[in-house]
């Protein structure tokens, strides 16, 4: 039986905040000591202090976490400067954390080795993994490929890329009591649990269809034979790309698209670094959305997950929503969470964060993909 508790505080004082969070978790679990936890924290907190406090409260906990661009939970709904902790307790369930460090040195190989080593410690068959990878230093797509190879057996990955408050400078990952950058922490679940997921976006392509003519992984150099920045300049009248208007990427021969937002750019080269690899010769279009479409995506993704849930009772919904969604929603960001409340029925705890890219398969039992500007719901329980 899996039990899940969520604590959430928006007190800017780190010590006060973590004390409040831990108290909420204890209130829910009683004298059960959680085996594992996931921490989402806004960037301004004293991260080391918080991790130490968690360790003090639950000394043997398997913990991962990351910095975020906003947090949400069934306790405080949407917040921008808060910490949210989800803890797991279960009999007949094995949960273990692992981390890959200095991931940018060889993302695929390091991720693969990390996953393979972690896998060996399990007695039960692994069911799924939560990943909170670095996204600014390296290709998240390569990290995912490595993890998949290391885990084998088509084990699905869920999660989101660590974020900060739109500075695009540095994100942090947490592993046990360590605060890291350029790392990929993972939390593996094995044994008697059930889960399902759903994804929805809300962006649609508009404007002319152009072709990627020069790209190296996630750096686009040329679109239609011209510097990539010209493409943005054409639409935005500004050489700065705006991540609220991601690119719809149609890989060659594909009618479905995924979205890629701009992370940074190089004025001299005219190149744009986007949030994930882009296949060569892809067709791209600029996209637009309306607030309604963005807000409605959370409920749509939850409904899909709910429909596919094969177990008896989901205990929690882990939500991974793109930071760009929040930026577009502005003051209406809380509506995205509020749209979930009727479905949660006061029975399912929810916790999530605003990411720099979401991780989930496109369909159940399918390959894991790296998404942007989407809302991923992972239902997990018995």
């Amino acid at each position: 039986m899996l039990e899940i508790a969520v604590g959430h505080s928006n007190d800017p004082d780190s010590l006060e905040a973590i004390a409040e969070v831990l108290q909420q978790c204890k209130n829910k679990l009683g004298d059960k000591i959680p085996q594992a936890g996931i921490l989402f924290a806004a960037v301004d907190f004293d991260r080391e202090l918080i991790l130490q406090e968690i360790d003090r409260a639950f000394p043997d906990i398997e913990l991962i976490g990351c910095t975020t661009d906003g947090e949400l939970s069934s306790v405080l709904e949407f917040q921008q400067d808060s910490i949210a902790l989800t803890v797991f307790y279960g009999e007949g369930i094995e949960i273990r954390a692992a981390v890959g460090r200095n991931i940018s040195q060889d993302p695929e190989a390091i991720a693969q080795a990390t996953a393979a080593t972690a896998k060996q410690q399990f007695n039960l068959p692994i069911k799924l993994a939560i990943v909170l990878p670095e996204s600014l230093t390296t290709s998240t797509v390569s990290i995912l490929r490595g993890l998949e190879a290391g885990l084998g057996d088509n084990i699905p990955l869920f999660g989101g890329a660590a974020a900060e408050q739109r500075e695009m400078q540095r994100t942090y990952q947490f592993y046990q009591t360590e605060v890291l950058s350029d790392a990929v922490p993972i939390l593996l679940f094995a044994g008697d649990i059930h889960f399902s997921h759903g994804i929805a976006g809300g962006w649609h392509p508009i404007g002319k269809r152009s072709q990627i003519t020069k790209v190296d992984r996630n750096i686009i150099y040329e679109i239609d034979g011209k510097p990539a920045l010209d493409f943005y300049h054409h639409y935005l009248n500004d050489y700065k790309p705006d991540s609220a208007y991601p690119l719809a990427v149609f890989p060659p021969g594909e009618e479905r698209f995924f979205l890629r937002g701009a992370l940074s750019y190089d004025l001299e080269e005219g190149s744009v670094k986007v949030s994930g690899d882009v296949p060569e010769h892809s067709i791209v279009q600029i996209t637009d959305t309306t607030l309604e479409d963005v807000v409605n995506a959370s409920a749509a993704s939850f409904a899909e997950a709910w429909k596919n849930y094969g177990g008896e009772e989901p205990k929690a919904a882990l939500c991974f929503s793109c930071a760009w969604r929040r930026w577009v929603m502005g003051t209406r960001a809380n509506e995205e969470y509020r749209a979930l409340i009727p479905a949660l029925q006061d029975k399912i705890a929810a916790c999530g964060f605003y990411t720099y890219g979401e991780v989930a398969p496109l369909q159940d039992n399918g390959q894991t993909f790296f998404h942007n500007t989407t809302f991923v719901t992972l239902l997990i329980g018995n």
Partner: protein
Amino acid sequence: MADEDKAAEIKDLQKQIRILQKKLERSETDRARLEVTNRNKESLLKGVICELEASQAVLEKKNLDVERAFNDLTLMQDKLVEAEKMAALGGLVAGVAHEINTPVGTCITVASTLMIETESLLAAVAANRLKRSLLDGYLEVAKESTDLLLRNLERAGELIQSFKQVAVDQSSLEKRTFALKPYLEELVVSLSPQLKKGSHQVTIAGDETIEMHSYPGAIAQVVTNLITNSLLHAYKNGEKGHLELRATKRDDRILLIYRDDGGGIERDNLKRVFDPFFTTARDRGGTGLGLHITYNLVTQKLQGKISLTSEVGKGTEFTIELPDRINS
């Protein structure tokens, strides 16, 4: 209130103040960012609208190009139709030339024989050796020769006359009053070399008295097209056909029925024979314009109607209905 409660309340107030301060900071930066996003949205939509306008302009230009190409094609088609008319005329000229060649050739032979005979007679006279028998022989040759010359020259004259009629009518397409049946007979004479080649039989039947005020040249061209089509399409090599042209009149309408007893036209092709460029004989020089021109001449120039029935293996029949007077 107890001191403890007060302390708790103060603590809570302090927390609320911290949160409010943080939120204020946040809302400032967020507001600035939203402004940028909105500005960009405006540009984006402008950009897309410009693109739509541009692609509309491109479409308009394409439309124009297509229109121009279409006009060029129409012009080209008109030219081809014109060329086909000229070709029909050319065929007529060749036929007539061939036909005239025979009497003129005979005349040349006869005239040279007569000349040789005359020279030997003159020589005999000069040498004072003219005998009665020689003179009689010469006179007989002269009589026969002049007979032949006259008949052949008359025939040539006839041919030239009929050709002149058709040729002039074809090229100028002048409107005049004429007797239909004799005109059709003349026309068939001018086509007879082609007809003779396959030794086909042509019957012209109907009312001798029909007079028309119309364009005889157009009628000539229509009939020429129908006959040449029968010759080209209806019969296999060596087959002897029977072509019939029948003219009747009821009130002010003239009915011209043309039929052959050849191979006929397949059902699927019946609807298409009047289409320009429809031909089943492209490999034998067919252009698919003949019946198209015929149709245009009948319906426009001659202000009439044309229809056809055909049965494979039995033959083809064209029914042409014409007004006897064209006024406009």
